[in-house]
């Protein structure tokens, strides 16, 4: 198991994290730029020092600030870190980069394990590039080579920082699957950092949401999005607006205590559907296509504007009623109300 109980000093704010990842488990860390996600990975890899804390990988302590203080040098930690910049060695070919970390007896470079390397090359689309130097690669190709290089190495933990940055959108979707498949063959703890929530959810068995150096919530990806622990987590996992409860029409026994309902653009249906959640009334302000859906800005009766993504277009100026499907509810202090009154009890009643 990888254990990271860390505090790292930074100029703006300290980064704190308490993470545990079992071998074969995948933890995705999601958050905005500057939240401290990369710092967590670098602290585990030993690239940045801890102010306080402990990093342990299985029985091996890698960093410890309590006496007796310990900091295992980077090469001995056997932690693979894929950084945002590809960091390929410019004087080596792609094949030489891929085989860089393979060691034979006595620590001599042994060249890559041919079977595993061939699989990586094939699955990551690197055929035909093996004799090319990094200067001849596109940004996306460089990133894929760097990903293959870290996967080709014999690490006991895998840390991936925005591994799919720079890929074409379509390829990025495919690479998510490839990455999951390749990592599944390596039963080591794996952490992936991304500011792309979809990517985080696709990769992780668990999802940690970070902001300003703190892990705000950690749990199963679907659950974190369905029930964000606070208003800030809700914002970070895609909820685009918070509407006061007294401005919503609640099903069943009426409005809950004063608080806030979070609106997720994708978790809405047209019309009032009391069994699904509270509804809102407003007027369509603007409509434009958004992928296969329609992005609709609607102004509520209370004057607030919310963005929705609907499967069918609506005309600008039309009145509209939408139901927020199973939205999280926050009390006046911004904390999640554990069981919203309109969901489980109503469904149980049905």
């Amino acid at each position, binding site marked *: 198991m990888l254990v990271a109980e860390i505090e790292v000093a930074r100029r703006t704010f300290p980064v704190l994290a308490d993470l545990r990842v079992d071998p074969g488990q995948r933890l995705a860390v999601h958050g905005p730029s500057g939240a401290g996600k990369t710092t967590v990975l670098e602290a585990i890899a030993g*690239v940045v020092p801890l102010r306080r804390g402990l990093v342990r990988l299985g029985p091996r302590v890698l960093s410890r600030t309590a006496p007796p203080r310990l900091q295992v040098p*980077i*090469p001995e930690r056997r932690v*693979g870190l894929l*950084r945002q910049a590809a960091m390929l060695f410019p*004087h080596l070919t792609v094949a030489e980069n891929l085989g*860089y970390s393979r060691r034979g007896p006595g620590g001599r470079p042994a060249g890559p394990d041919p079977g595993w390397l061939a699989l990586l090359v094939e699955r990551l689309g690197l055929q035909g590039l093996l004799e090319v130097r990094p200067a001849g690669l596109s940004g996306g190709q460089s990133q894929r080579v760097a990903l293959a290089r870290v996967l080709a190495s014999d690490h006991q933990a895998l840390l991936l920082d925005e591994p799919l940055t720079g890929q074409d959108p379509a390829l990025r979707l495919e690479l998510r699957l490839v990455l999951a498949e390749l990592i599944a063959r390596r039963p080591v703890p794996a952490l992936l950092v991304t500011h792309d929530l979809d990517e985080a959810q696709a990769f992780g068995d668990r999802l940690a949401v970070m902001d300003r150096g703190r892990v705000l919530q950690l749990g199963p990806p679907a659950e974190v999005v369905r029930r964000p622990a606070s208003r800030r987590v809700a914002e970070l996992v895609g909820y685009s607006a918070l509407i006061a409860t007294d401005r919503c029409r609640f099903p069943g026994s009426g409005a809950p205590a004063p608080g806030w309902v979070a609106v997720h653009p994708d978790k809405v249906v047209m019309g009032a559907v009391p069994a699904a959640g509270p509804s809102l009334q407003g007027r369509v302000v603007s409509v434009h296509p958004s992928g296969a859906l329609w992005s609709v800005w609607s102004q509520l009766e209370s004057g607030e504007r919310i963005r929705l993504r609907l499967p069918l277009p609506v005309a600008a100026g039309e009145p509209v009623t939408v139901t927020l499907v199973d939205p999280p509810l926050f009390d006046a202090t911004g904390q999640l109300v554990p069981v919203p009154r309109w969901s489980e009890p109503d469904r149980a009643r049905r």
Partner: protein
Amino acid sequence: MDRTLGAPGALDPLWVSLGASGLALGVIVLGGTPLGWLLARDRLPAGRLIEVGLLGPLLMPPLVIGLLLVFMVGPNTPIGQLLGHLGLSATNTFLAVVIAEVYEAAPYYVLGVQAAVAAVDRDLEVEAELLGDHPFRRWRRVTLPLAAPGLASALAITWARAIGAFGAVIIVAYHPFGLPLQIWTSLQETGLGSALPFALLLVVVALPLPVLAYLWSARARRRD
């Protein structure tokens, strides 16, 4: 030219210059490479002070460097006396030529290495460590190859500077004559005609290394 270079002992200055400069270059490379690397990576507690110390010989006229050397390693200084106990002398000896050349040429090499290593992305070195390389192996596999064109240029300049050293050498080691001193004395005593063959000889032995280093370095840069 035949008469000048064909005279008995006429090529002695050539052997002195090649021997002293080769030895000086060896000393400079052995000591200057780690020093330049440490300076580039800010690993020395008084790094800035050392840089200033290296700039001194670059900025001062070589004659002044020679005078400073007399005060540092002359027979009446602690270092001179220590050398004396070992049966050595840093005045008017082959050793003195080597010391003067080292002192005059070393800053070019150290500052050249510093610039070449500083140009190597530190993150690439960290990457090598993340992939399992300990410091020496990291140096050999990443830092050295990437800094090599810059190191080659530094080596070429240092060689040219050492073999052509005159100002400091004439102060601390008037004898034995190397080529620069031979050119000077020939010019003074018998005129341009007898100095020119030695000048040509100096060019012939001094140029190949810088030219080769330049060509190799240009090729390496084009390849990257």
